[in-house]
């Protein structure tokens, strides 16, 4: 992968207030940066939220993104992750007629399992590194998944 398209994960701690998410996404669109995925949730027992943004760009672009994010008034901190634990999750709906024990075994090796059983479908959950989620989604193709929902990343620096 060339430097100019290198994948980066940035975490942003922001004041949890109205329109703060628009400020962040407007900055990305206004300055021509990409957002590959985005995860937002309040930080427990604080007035802040944490955003995890997966983006891409050269070292210089990422440096600009970091600085521009920092310039926004409600932004407390920006982490450009170097050495992190990163996880995504995915929910997958399978027909109940598929081999459920195979599916469950596969899910288990990706930190997941079947989490819901209905009349016609089951829903499975996995949580792992983005690359591994890619692999998983590839591996389950043969079980005819009906619907796949993939989350954004969350990351913590080691």
């Amino acid at each position: 992968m060339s430097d100019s398209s290198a994948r980066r994960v940035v975490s942003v701690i922001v004041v949890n207030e109205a329109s703060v998410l628009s400020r962040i996404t407007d900055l990305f669109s206004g300055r021509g940066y990409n957002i590959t995925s985005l995860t937002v949730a309040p930080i427990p027992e604080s007035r802040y939220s944490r955003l995890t943004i997966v983006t891409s760009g050269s070292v210089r672009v990422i440096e600009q993104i970091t600085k521009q994010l920092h310039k926004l008034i409600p932004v407390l901190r920006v982490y450009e992750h170097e050495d992190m634990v990163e996880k995504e999750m995915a929910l997958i709906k399978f027909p109940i007629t598929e081999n459920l024990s195979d599916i469950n075994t596969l899910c288990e090796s990706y930190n997941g399992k079947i989490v819901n059983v209905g009349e016609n479908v089951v829903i499975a959950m996995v949580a792992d590194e983005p690359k591994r989620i890619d692999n998983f989604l590839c591996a389950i193709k043969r079980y005819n998944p009906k619907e796949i929902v993939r989350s954004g990343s969350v990351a913590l620096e080691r």
Partner: protein
Amino acid sequence: MQISGAQMVIEALIAEGVDTVFGYPGGAIMNVYDEIYKQDKFHHILTRHEQAAVHAAEGYAKVSAKVGVAMITSGPGFTNAVTGLADAYMDSIPLVVISGQVPMTLIGTDAFQEIDAVGISRSCTKHNYLVTDAADLPRILKEAFYIARSGRPGPVHVDIPKDVTAQIATFDYDIALDLETYKPHTKGNPRQIKKAMQAIADAKRPLFYLGGGIINANAADEVRELVHTTGIPAVETFMARGTLEHNDALLIGMVGMHGSYAANMAMSETDIIIALGARFDDRVTGKLSEFAKNATVIHVDIDPASISKLVNANFPIVGDIKSVVKDMLAQSSVIDAQNYEQWRETIVNFNELHPLTYYEDSERLKPQWVIERVGALLGDNANISTDVGQHQMWTAQFYPFSRPRQFVSSGGLGTMGFGFPAAIGVKAAAPEKTSINFTGDGSILMNCQELMTAVEKKLPVINIILNNNFLGMVRQWQTLFYDDRHAETDLSVQPDFIKLAEAFGGVGYRVTTKEEFDAALEDAIKKDVVAFIEVKVERFENVMPMVPSGGSLFNMMLLEKKESK
């Protein structure tokens, strides 16, 4: 104190020491205007267009070094003001712009004169607020003023729904600001400053690259001292005009697309750039890959995002210019001004080879002459604003600026229609100085309704219209890059500028000779009323030198040499 949201706005403005507000009333902001009517602590200047209110506040802010304030209503009132917000954002001008909004109960219903104002202003303000509870107003307004003037200054927009202005709540402006997420860094890193000073001392061809941040930081005195102590030549950006006196031996001139030959050559040949409050704008650098190829870069700026954005800084220094330059001065003994003698001579030679000049070789007056003439007659006694185009570049090139905050112009956004309302704000801030607006026959029509404001409020701005019957700068590009096809730039059809000024109660002059110009300017100053002086100038004059867009800074189109000036 239990008061209404509208009264809070007034109390906050008074507490902030605001003495002039520019604005235009309308439905959603009426509660606030009702309180303006009842008070006598500050002036309200009614412009005739919301865009003009914001530009006037910009002019006021620039000259007074205070936060400018504009007030407008919702919907079209706000959207008209957006150009002003964007202009102030690009040029880092501290403003607080207060807009009315439809009542909270109607937000989101496509109500009459409703628009998502904070949604629109988000990308062209330093920060913005939608006030949803009058109890938050004191804090929000206090934050707004603080954010506007601190760090890298900029416009802050406060949108207040009509029912919030009617709501009663507690007003206490004596609250401490608690902005945990906003703490501008003002003190430069001492070790980095020390290393930078040593790098300058080791250099052979150092160059100061002075930007508008110096003026925002009120640091011109310190910068002048640093330049003189070190004996290092300096170039100024368009936004920095007036940082050094025009006749300062160490001032090479303006740098960039229409910078002088010597300034652009110095920038191309320097071995260390000392950038102070400048942002390596594309109009300054030309082609980036060819820009100052052999130079080390010291970059001092209050805004970390400006450093290494376009040109990598070897010595990044985040801090307030005034503070950092003082620290540099304290260590200036490492630098020996004698070392740069040869470099200064080189620059003198550049200047002699291609001086910044023009030739009086036409029947009609040359626009540059008009600007030089005003400079000779008024010099330091005038504050100068401009619109956007050729006249703007000629003003930056030829007016003898002698102090910071003397020059007010739309640099970053390049807003035609900026000059006249800005000059009204300038005059309101500094009534003792003559307020001159150099403008063009294109630009002046973009806010000429402000004649009414100037007449009503007795703000005798003198507009000098350099009339070439063209949208001159675009015509120049058409001549140079589009085979002289004048697509929609011929402004042969024009109003009678004398009658236009007179229709509003101002005075108008049309001049074609030097004598007429002198007489008109003298008369306009004496009459002390808003004036249009229309000067018929050479139609096809080009702004030279010129670095074509995307070209290298050292590769300039130059004025063709002729015998006499």
